[in-house]
């Protein structure tokens, strides 16, 4: 007998959902029928519990995802949106237009290069902080992890606006600090009034700093949770044998935490590859076309005049498929960690 309470509760819901006989108290059916009814209700219970959330998610997530696929093969613009013309099937026209578009390849390159830069940096920073947290005393560890998670909880828009101000050419503290650095560290007066938003490289540098700042706390907390599962005796034994902390990490901690690192890497790629709000603001709100990443490019195609929802949907589909391929790896890694139990 498993969780009779919940089962019966759900069963009652189930009964209410089906049309019952009208009238007050129905006569008590014989025991055998009751048992069968109970079993049937019990079997239906999980589905009934899932129904509301499935309906909402189906309508607002799954259905739009299907539509996205449909639109990507259609000629869907303003007239179709207004209902003046029906949407026409365009075959692969949207996709062939995209593949011939140099802006697409630029956006794809920006997305890839950005992920290649920001994912290892976030993982490295997060792992170092996680390792440190594991060795700190409890009050200090709580303090550091709390401050770190404040960065994580800061809204993307606030964080971006703050970094705009920090990196502002006019009164920004970063330019001021860089100008004050000694020459051999790359400092100097040429940093005074340096604009970080005029070219791809500086913009993506700011975006990288911003996303590492917002992203490392999650990695640190996850790595810390993983480290807590590493048996202390193993590390102790290695230390007694004269293994240094560097070797100890690579020989003991890393192999044990490999699944955690795999999941975190894949998650970071998924989150950073087409990053939207921060990149949207930093690239001048669809202003600088050569700074687009794939997420922004799809959005711009769909929502700047004249809007081409078909092209935007095709681009969004490409982005989604790329992320889904990475998600397959993520799901497999999660299952291997026992996520489905």
């Amino acid at each position: 007998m498993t969780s009779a309470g919940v089962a019966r509760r759900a069963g009652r819901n189930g009964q209410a959902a089906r049309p019952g006989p009208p009238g007050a108290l129905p006569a008590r059916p014989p025991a055998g029928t009751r048992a069968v009814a109970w079993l049937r209700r019990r079997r239906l219970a999980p589905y009934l519990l899932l129904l509301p959330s499935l309906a909402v998610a189906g309508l607002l997530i799954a259905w739009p995802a299907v539509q996205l696929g449909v639109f990507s093969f259609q000629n869907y613009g303003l007239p179709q949106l207004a209902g003046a013309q029906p949407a026409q099937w365009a075959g692969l026209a949207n996709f062939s237009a995209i593949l011939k578009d140099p802006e697409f390849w630029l956006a794809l390159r920006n997305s890839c290069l950005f992920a290649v830069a920001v994912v290892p940096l976030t993982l490295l920073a997060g792992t170092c902080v996680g390792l440190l947290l594991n060795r700190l005393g409890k009050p200090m560890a709580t303090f550091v992890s709390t401050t770190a998670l404040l960065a994580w909880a800061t809204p993307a828009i606030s964080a971006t606006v703050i970094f705009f101000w920090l990196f502002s050419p006019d009164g920004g503290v970063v330019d001021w600090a860089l100008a004050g650095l000694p020459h051999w560290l790359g400092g100097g007066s040429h940093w005074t009034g340096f604009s970080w938003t005029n070219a791809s490289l500086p913009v993506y540098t700011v975006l990288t700093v911003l996303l590492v700042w917002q992203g490392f706390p999650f990695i640190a907390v996850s790595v810390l949770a993983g480290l807590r599962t590493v048996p202390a005796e193993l590390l102790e034994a290695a230390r007694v044998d004269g293994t240094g902390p560097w070797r100890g990490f690579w020989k003991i901690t890393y192999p044990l935490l490999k699944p955690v690192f795999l999941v975190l890497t894949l998650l970071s790629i998924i989150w950073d590859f087409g990053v939207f709000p921060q990149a949207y603001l930093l690239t001048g709100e669809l202003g600088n076309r050569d700074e687009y990443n794939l997420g922004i490019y799809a959005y711009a195609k769909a929502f700047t005049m004249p809007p081409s929802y078909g092209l935007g949907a095709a681009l969004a589909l490409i982005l989604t498929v790329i992320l889904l391929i990475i998600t397959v790896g993520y799901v497999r890694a999660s299952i291997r960690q026992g996520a489905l139990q």
Partner: protein
Amino acid sequence: MSVARVAGGEANRPARSARRLIRAAALNGAGAAIALVTLVPIGWMLSTSFKPGREIFSLTPHPLPAHPTLANFRAVISGGVIGHPFWVFLANSLLVTVTAVAASSTLALLAAIAVARFRFRFRSTYLIMLLVVQMLPQQALVIALFIDFRATGLLDSLAGLFLAYTAFALPISIWMLRSFVAAVPKEMEEAAAIDGAGPVRVFWRILFPLTAPGLVATSVFSFIYAWNEFTFALTFLGTDQAKYTLPIYVTYFFNKGGADWGAIMAASALYTIPPIVFFLLVQRRMARGLVAGAVKG
């Protein structure tokens, strides 16, 4: 440590303890440095928001305002740039966020009970779908949702945002809640049922109180999601400024405010403080839920 000390012998003790002290100092110093670096952007936002104009653009920036002023906050709250006072946008954000959190937590609790307490066909498929759906990029789906919302009159309305946030907070909420539900010992429910408690009573007396901490953690998570969400709000709230939520308001302020960084920082401080305070209140459980959500440790 104790094993190492025995191996080192008694004679080495003073040298060892000195080394330990140095190591502890270095570790704590590194910890403090990380905390400092992490706090600099938030601190700079707060400090700028209290600075008068001439201090903001001074040639040598100072970490703290020399003559703190509330002028920036006054300008933001009266809403000079946008023509509506700050409270309008705060109310919009609160309304959408609180209703979406309540709705999605309720739906997620039902689903989490199903997943944690029952073995049914498609259970694994369902869990995998949860993981996959969580990874769908919003900036992609927003194109189709925009067209749907336009057709159903949900553009320029907070109801549309409420629906979108409820749906998109669901996967992670279900995923987090199911580990909290699974942690409640089944035996307690069974014992109550044997004692004659009906299913509704078992839920309210046992399952609900015991999953309440998880419900709080999950709610904070979806609160932060909905409060911080930008892409949908940007796309669905077009011209009607009275419907703007705070992130759109801050962006608008940022665009139209020129280089009035004092006011922009004051606006973003007012927007940033609620999730941070909320988060600090439930910090411990939050960190646990965070890990349980994405990486089952």
